[in-house]
């Protein structure tokens, strides 16, 4: 029989945990785990650090030695002396042209107001939380913006808006009979109204007229914004029609849409712009000649429409078959089922894709500089680089241009990611 063993000492409480080894704590641990966990990782870290060093050692002296106040590039070089730096005075001197083109100096408030209101108009489209009432302002916005940017009598946008209202009223009267009839009736009514109002505007003179600004004088980043916003807005309906056409069961309509979409997607935008610039005029009735900006808008809209059609087609394909069948079983006709059931869902799924196309399109508006329009890039490559004062200032102005685009595009792409997350939780 063994005597129960008695321990001399029994610990009743737990030892306080000793601090982790130095290599497993704080900054060092973080460094070890994140930056130097393996040989390969260490090499990568060192390479990355070198990259950052190389970038910063090039950029920082250039930035901090920069001259912000000078008359011309020669003045800049004199002020800098030995230290090479940027001549940021060029941005100071030319930012007006880069942003507004040759828009008259004293009425910058008009495009600026239009720009600010643009975000107000976009808010209800972009964010569900914004009161729905603002959507009325969104509808009103294009007319307001036109009046602000181009000027002229307020009658033109007002009558254009009224024409739309007349069209809508006729449409809502007739749509009960059939969608096609309502649609045609609406378009016809609006067209007649616009035709009649043409006489009013040509005779009524200047009611509430703002100073008119010729399209030619609109340039710089403002032109990129206008082209981007107008073309994306116009290409949405075109894209929807093309996407529906491509899904259609009618072979001829389907093939027309397929050929159009594949053709436009198969050629570079720049060739379409050449068409707008040098060929389109041949295909219009003799004597008609409308603005280059209008021709460019038509071409970019076609281009964007084809891409948006593909995005929406993806959305349509992603909808469960049951939705189509359910719509049919309710006895809805094609127009009704699309309008009330299919499209609202398909469009919602497609929003992130559409936003991506929109960002791409906005960036592509710089291509108009190739056909000698003075957008942001065009005005830099043309008058600014050619000017005697700022000859040789290259990085500074292109850096400024890149920054402007980055701010807008990065903002929109962050929005798109946010929206994707919102939609993702929605569908779970």
């Amino acid at each position, binding site marked *: 029989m063994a005597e129960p063993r008695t321990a001399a000492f029994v610990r009743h409480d737990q030892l306080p945990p000793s601090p982790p080894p130095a290599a497993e704590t704080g900054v060092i641990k973080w460094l070890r785990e994140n930056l130097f966990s393996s040989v390969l990782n260490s090499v990568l870290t060192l390479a990355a650090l070198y990259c950052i060093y190389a970038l910063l050692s090039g950029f920082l002296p250039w930035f901090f030695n920069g001259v912000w106040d000078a008359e011309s590039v020669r003045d800049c070089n004199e002020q800098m002396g030995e230290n090479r730096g940027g001549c940021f005075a060029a941005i100071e001197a030319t930012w007006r042209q880069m942003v507004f083109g040759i828009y008259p100096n004293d009425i910058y408030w008009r495009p600026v107001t239009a720009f600010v209101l643009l975000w107000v108009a976009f808010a209800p489209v972009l964010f569900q939380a914004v009161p729905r009432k603002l959507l009325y302002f969104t509808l009103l916005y294009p007319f307001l913006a036109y009046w602000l940017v181009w000027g002229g009598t307020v009658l033109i946008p007002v009558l254009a808006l009224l024409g739309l209202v007349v069209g809508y009223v006729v449409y809502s009267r007739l749509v009960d009979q059939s969608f096609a009839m309502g649609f045609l009736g609406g378009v016809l009514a609006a067209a007649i109204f616009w035709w009649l109002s043409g006489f009013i505007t040509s005779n009524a003179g200047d009611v509430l007229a703002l100073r008119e600004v010729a399209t030619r004088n609109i340039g710089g980043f403002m032109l990129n914004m206008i082209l981007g916003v107008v073309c994306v807005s116009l290409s949405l309906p075109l894209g929807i029609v093309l996407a529906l056409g491509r899904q259609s069961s009618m072979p001829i309509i389907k093939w027309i849409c397929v050929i159009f979409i594949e053709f436009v997607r198969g050629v570079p935008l720049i060739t379409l712009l050449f068409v707008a610039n040098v060929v389109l005029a041949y295909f219009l009735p003799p004597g*008609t000649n409308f603005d280059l900006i*209008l021709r460019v808008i038509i071409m970019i809209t076609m281009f964007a429409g084809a891409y948006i059609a593909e995005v929406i087609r993806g959305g349509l394909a992603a909808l469960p078959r049951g939705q189509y069948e359910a719509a049919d079983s309710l006895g809805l006709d094609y127009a009704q089922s699309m309008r009330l059931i299919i499209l609202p869902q398909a469009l919602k799924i497609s929003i992130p894709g559409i936003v991506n196309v929109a960002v791409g399109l906005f960036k592509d508006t710089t291509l108009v500089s190739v056909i000698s329009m003075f957008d942001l890039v065009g005005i830099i490559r043309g008058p600014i680089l050619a000017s005697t004062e700022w000859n040789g200032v290259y990085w500074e102005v292109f850096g400024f241009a890149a920054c402007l685009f980055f701010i807008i595009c990065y903002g929109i792409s962050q929005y798109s990611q946010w929206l994707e997350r919102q939609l993702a939780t929605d569908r779970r």
Partner: protein
Amino acid sequence: MKKTMMLGTLTVAAVAAGAASAQTVNDITDRGSLNCGVSTGLTGFAELNQETNRWEGFDVAVCRAVAAAVLGDPEAVTFVPVTNKVRFTALNSGEIDMLARNTTWTYSRDVDLKLEFTGINYYDGQGFMVPAALGVSSAKDLDGATVCIQTGTTTELNLADFFRVNNISYEPVPIETAAEAKQQFLDGACDVYTTDASGLAAQRSSFPNPGDYVILPEIISKEPLGPLVRHGDNEWGDIVRWTLNALIAAEELGVTSANIDDLAAAPGDNPEINRLLGTEGGLGEMLGLDADWAVRAIKAGGNYGEIFAQNIGEATPIGLARGLNAQWTNGGLLYSPPFR
């Protein structure tokens, strides 16, 4: 969203475009402004002033003179900057009424492209510019050189011909705009920069150290530059042609922007001045304009000599001598047909 605006504009445009294309003058008076195609930026010839947002230059002055003659206002011009590529299509499609953009008058442009050159406002020729440090004294020494050219111009073809005829090799670097060609040349991406001699002088004047660059003596082509209009509307062509001639004749006759008011007030001794300024005869009516048309054109920027001196002459940084562009009475080629 803006579709309605487009439709509205389209309807208006369609209504307005009822007129036949042969009546450019009517289109211009209806519009109230002259659409004039100019270069996107060439020092001295067409330049957008950074402060005033106003176009200035030798070519621009021709546009203003025509606008003054037709519309009575030298400011009633919409300047449409066009690149080499689009200039002729812009003209043919009616986007611009006239092109004043140092464009060379050639057979194929006149006959095949159906353009109408209305005269010559600058006699030019293609030259070469090299850095003085290269020690080149003749274009024939340029074997193996890298040459910057602006694409879409006659320079490209002349260059190919010149090097082929002289059996020397070169490497062309085609560039879209004058500004970028200048950058490339200054940074040594090409050894030689070739364009019209006037353009070379204009470019050189804007270099940081103009003295470091020399223009070679060879002029390898004839480049008569002048304003042009579409084929087929002779009335409009006549107005542009004779506006240019009026500027040239005014210099020959000693009519300047300083004394024109006096000379135009009453008929003077010189019958040709009287006919030019409309104090005698009915030359303006023949053109479909009023009697004062030439007075307004000359007042817009002065006579040919004044325009030259102000924009590209020896007193300006560009510093071009009159040379071939002097009046025929001074040994140059400028020779306006008589106003009779």
